[in-house]
Every structure is written in structure tokens, then in C-alpha cells.
């Protein structure tokens, strides 16, 4: 029982960042219909931004997070404008392959610049974990959970309360009609990709200090993000948040009770199961999938 409680606490910490990754990808995948293979590299990029700000510039740990988010936003906008904007109207396979090309080039670039050795990021929190009854959680992980929750709320408000969010939702439902109503669809696409990328960078910046930072860290993150998007349904923000926590729970339980070697298999098994038995996702409106 105590073990289960510990798994639930770990699940909450992991699930928050997974939800961030999932929201970012579900926006891009849902609104732009682009299978974004650069999502993982943005996650890596966010973590390296954290490393650079804390260790190479020597600035404050808490300042590094907004820097990583802004840098992710800029990189995402740059990718969208240079690679995706010229390919508007191209079929989904073409944009996917272009994204794969960008992913290979950028990951190799990261390997070239920062080297293959894993780096750890120092954090200002005390080493002793917070112990509540049978459960212990480090202060850093607690911070990650709260920061992720704050960012989820921010993203949620951006999409549901602002004019930009309204335009994004309209474009998701019907881009032609949205364009007729005066929505600058091209700008919406760029904003969507930039926002999604900044959320991935935020997830990387938050998990970077928890684990270690290395150029390939984003590969699994990207696949997990796909699992979350499929679980929650395409373009469904709430679904992505719930999907993030479900995936985290499945991984925790899989690692705890089956075998830690199969921890990363959980995401893939979820993808296969959901797509075979409920291809519309657990929470999606059926008509938008296909």
C-alpha cells in the first residue's frame, strides 16, 4: 500500500510534465495536421537552455525556466516559418518526412555543440526530501509539479479565454471557414507551432534537472507525447492532460510491478491498445479523427 502511494506521488510529478508535452503536440497535430517529429528535440532544447543559463551564464535557476520557454517559442516559430510555411497544402507524409529531416539535423547539431556526455543541472533546493508519512518526495520534484500545473493552467486559459485561443479553436474546427471569417490562418499556424514548441521546451527544462541532459533525451519524450495525444484524442487539451497522467501512472505501475526494463514500453502498448480498440481516443469527439 505504501509502495502504491509512492507510485501515485511519482505519477503526479511525471504526469504534469507529460501533460505539458501532450498539450503542445495535440495543438500542433490537431490544428496543423503535422506529425511533429521535432517535438522531442524542442524538449531536449529546453533542457539544454536550462543547463546553459544555470551553468554557463551562471544565472538564477528560476530565471532559467522562462528563458527556456521563450527560446523554445522562438525556435518553434523559426521551424514553422522556414520549413512548414512553404509546404502548406502538402500531404501529411511530406511534412512528416521534412520534420524527420529537421529532427535528425537538429539532434546531430545538439550532439555536435554539446557533446554526447550526459550533463546534470544543479538546483537550489535542499537535498533532504519532504517526507509525509510513508511517502517521500524531493523538493525539486515538488517544484516541477507546481510549475507544470501553473503552465497547464496558463495554456488552458490561453486557448479558452483569449482571442488568439478562439482563433486557434476555430482553425481546428474548420480552417477554410475560419479564414473566411477573417482569421489569419497562416499566423495561427505559426503561433500554434511556437506555443506547442515552447510547452515542449518547458517540459524539458523542468525534467532536465530531475534527470540528466543529453542530446537523445527527446526521442522517447516525443513518442510519449504521441501516446498522450492518441490517448486524449486529437486536439483535445483536457484529454492531453488526463492522458499525460494516465501514461505516467501506467509507467509507474509497469516499472514497479512488472519490470523496470519495460517502463518505456508502456507508452507504446497504450498506443497500440487505444488505436486498436478505441481509435478516436478516450475523450475525443469521433468526427474529427481520420
Amino acid at each position, binding site marked *: 500500500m505504501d509502495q502504491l502511494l509512492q507510485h501515485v506521488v511519482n505519477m503526479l510529478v511525471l504526469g504534469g510534465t507529460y501533460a505539458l508535452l501532450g498539450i503542445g503536440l495535440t495543438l500542433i497535430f490537431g490544428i496543423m495536421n503535422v506529425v511533429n517529429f521535432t517535438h522531442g528535440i524542442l524538449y531536449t532544447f529546453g533542457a539544454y537552455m536550462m543547463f546553459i543559463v544555470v551553468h554557463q551564464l551562471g544565472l538564477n535557476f528560476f530565471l532559467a525556466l522562462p528563458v527556456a520557454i521563450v527560446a523554445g517559442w522562438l525556435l518553434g516559430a523559426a521551424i514553422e516559418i522556414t520549413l512548414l510555411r512553404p509546404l502548406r497544402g502538402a500531404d501529411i507524409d511530406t511534412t512528416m518526412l*521534412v520534420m*524527420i529531416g529537421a529532427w*535528425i*539535423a537538429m539532434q546531430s547539431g545538439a550532439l555536435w555543440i554539446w557533446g554526447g556526455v550526459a550533463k546534470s543541472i544543479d538546483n537550489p533546493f535542499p537535498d533532504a526530501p519532504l517526507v509525509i508519512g510513508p511517502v517521500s518526495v524531493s523538493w525539486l520534484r515538488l517544484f516541477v509539479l507546481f510549475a507544470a500545473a501553473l503552465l497547464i493552467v496558463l495554456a488552458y486559459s490561453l486557448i479558452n479565454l483569449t482571442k488568439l485561443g478562439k482563433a486557434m479553436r476555430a482553425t481546428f474546427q474548420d480552417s477554410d471557414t475560419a479564414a473566411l471569417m477573417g482569421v489569419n490562418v497562416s499566423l495561427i499556424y505559426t503561433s500554434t507551432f511556437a506555443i506547442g514548441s515552447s510547452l515542449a521546451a518547458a517540459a524539458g527544462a523542468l525534467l532536465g534537472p530531475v534527470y540528466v541532459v543529453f542530446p537523445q533525451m527527446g526521442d522517447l519524450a516525443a513518442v510519449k507525447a504521441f501516446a498522450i495525444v*492518441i490517448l486524449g484524442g486529437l486536439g483535445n487539451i483536457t484529454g492531453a492532460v488526463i492522458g499525460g497522467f494516465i501514461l505516467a501512472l501506467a509507467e509507474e505501475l509497469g516499472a514497479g510491478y512488472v519490470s523496470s526494463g519495460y517502463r518505456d*514500453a508502456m507508452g507504446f502498448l497504450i498506443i497500440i491498445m487505444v488505436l*486498436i480498440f478505441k481509435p478516436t481516443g478516450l475523450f475525443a469527439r469521433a468526427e474529427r479523427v481520420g
Partner: protein
Amino acid sequence: MKQIVTLLCLAFFVSVPMWLTDPYLLNALITTGIFIIGAMSLNLLLGFTGQLSLGHIAFFGIGAYVSALTSLGFDVPIHGDFHIVHVPWPPIVGFFLAIVISGFCGYLVGRLSFSVRGAYFVIVTISFAEVVRLVALNWVELTQGPLALTNIPSITIGLPGLGYLVLKTKFHNYYLVLAVAAISYFLISRLVHSHYGRAMRGLMENETLAVAVGINVTKTLTLAAVISAGIAGAAGSLYAHYIRIIDPDVFAFISTVTMVIMVVSGGKGSLAGPVVGGVIFGLLPVFLRPIMPPEAQWITYGVVLIVILFVMPRGIVPSLAAKLGLARAGGTRRASIAVSERTVEEHA
């Protein structure tokens, strides 16, 4: 005309080991050839049925492991004292078993994943490949996990009256790979020009229309998946017996990407496409290696892929063929199908 070109190319490939003595280049050609076989099998799915499978390396890897384990033997505890013990069989049996078992996996995966299309199909296939990789990594009793299967024997062919020929040298392996590649090419060519091939292309161009004229979607796609997986398994088996050591990295996602790049750059849906794309991208590292570090090679790899997609989205072979007017008949036929599809969409 087309057949003459094909035969001339084949004659050229046959002649290569006669004048090429550099073992490093010959090695690059053999591994490239193995990947071209994989790319040809992928092209059957991607180019002729329109299904982008990004888990194709799974069948390659399954073929490699099946073939290696058949020729090495294994002793796996299943439950308590119950063991499954397998004594080594000749590698050539492993080669054919690899084809059969990979083909069977292709059948299973096809039946499960063809219920979804587009991006979802891509993601299911990636997931399948990753699950297989994780099993290969964690089922240490069978696969040795990250410690790799080593000392895999070379393929041996029994010649009547002449004893046994062990295909151990690069010279031998080159011809073995070439033979398997030529057979696969011939097989795929026969398939896509048959009734089934036309059904596959019909499905790719307009699935609703294909169903309406009575094409059995699941049967057609599954047939393509089985043959494609079987050929990929054969390539994996060749790889295992040539390199003679395999670890779970044979399932690396980047290898699938390599095959996709070969197909897309050469021209999907063109029989010669994967061969042309394969030769270019298989040998690109050989020429880049002396002039730049490995990271820069991979950057170039990614950039070249993007540039090809921007400049020649249909691939090298179809673009060249269109320029030379060779594909006039094929081109007009495709155009008319595209037009009819557009009209259907407008009426829908």
C-alpha cells in the same frame, strides 16, 4: 527499353567485385545492398499502397534475430524447470525461417494496424517496432540483451557434388546480397504489375472508389504487408549472417528512417526508386566521412532529405523519367486518376 536498362544495371552490379578491390568500399556496398532490399520492401507498402510504415525495421530485426537464433541455438527457461531448447540448425534454414516468421509478423501487424490510417498508422507501426526492440533488450535469456548475439555463422550453401560453399568473404556476400536483391526486385515487379498490384494502387489513389468497385481492402493491404515483411526479414537475415553480431540496436528507429529516405528520395511507387535512392544515401556516408565529423554527416543527411522533399517531392527517378519523357504513359494515367479523384471530392 526499360528491361534493357534494368539488365544493363544488373550487369553493372554483377561486374563490380571484378574491378573494385577496396574492401572498405565493397563492405559499404554490401550493407547498402542489404538496406536497399529493406527499402524495396518498404516501397511496396509506401509506394504502392500509400501506407507509411515507420516500424519497418521491426521485420528486418525480427528476421535478423530469428536467423541468428536458429543457427546459434538457445536454451530459454519459460516457467520453473520447463525449458525450450533448440539445437543449432544450418544458417540457410534460418534464412528461410526468417522470411516465414517476419512474414507472419507482417500478417499480424497488418491485421491489427490497417484499421487505422494516415498518421495513426504511422504511430502504431513505430510503437510496434519499439515494443519489439524493448523485448529484444529485456529478454536476456533468449537474445542476450545488450550483450549481443555473437559468432553468428556465415550462410552455407550445399552444392550437389561439390561439397559446401561457406559464404564468408565480402566477395561471396556481395553476390549473395545481389542475388536476393534481384529476386526481391523481380518478385515485387511481378506483384505490382498483377491484378493485386492494380488493386493496391487503386486503394492508394482513392480508397472509397476502390471499395466501391469491389476491391477487398484488408486482403490487399495484408498481402502487401506480408510480402513486404518477408522481404525485410530476408534482408535482416543477410545482415545477421554478414555482420555476424547483432544487438537490439538493429531495431533503431534511425534505420527505418534511412529506408524511408532511400524510398522517398529515389521515388516512391517506382521500382527503381529505392535502388537509386539507396545507392545515393547508402554511399553518401562513404564520401562524407573523410571531409566531415560524424555529427556533421548526420546534419547533411537531414538537410539533404529536406532539400529533396522541397525540390523533388516525387523523388529522383519519377522526376528524371518525366523530364526524359520515359514515363509518358504512366504519367498520363496517373494524371487522369488524379483528375477523377478531384471530381469525386468535389461532388462529395
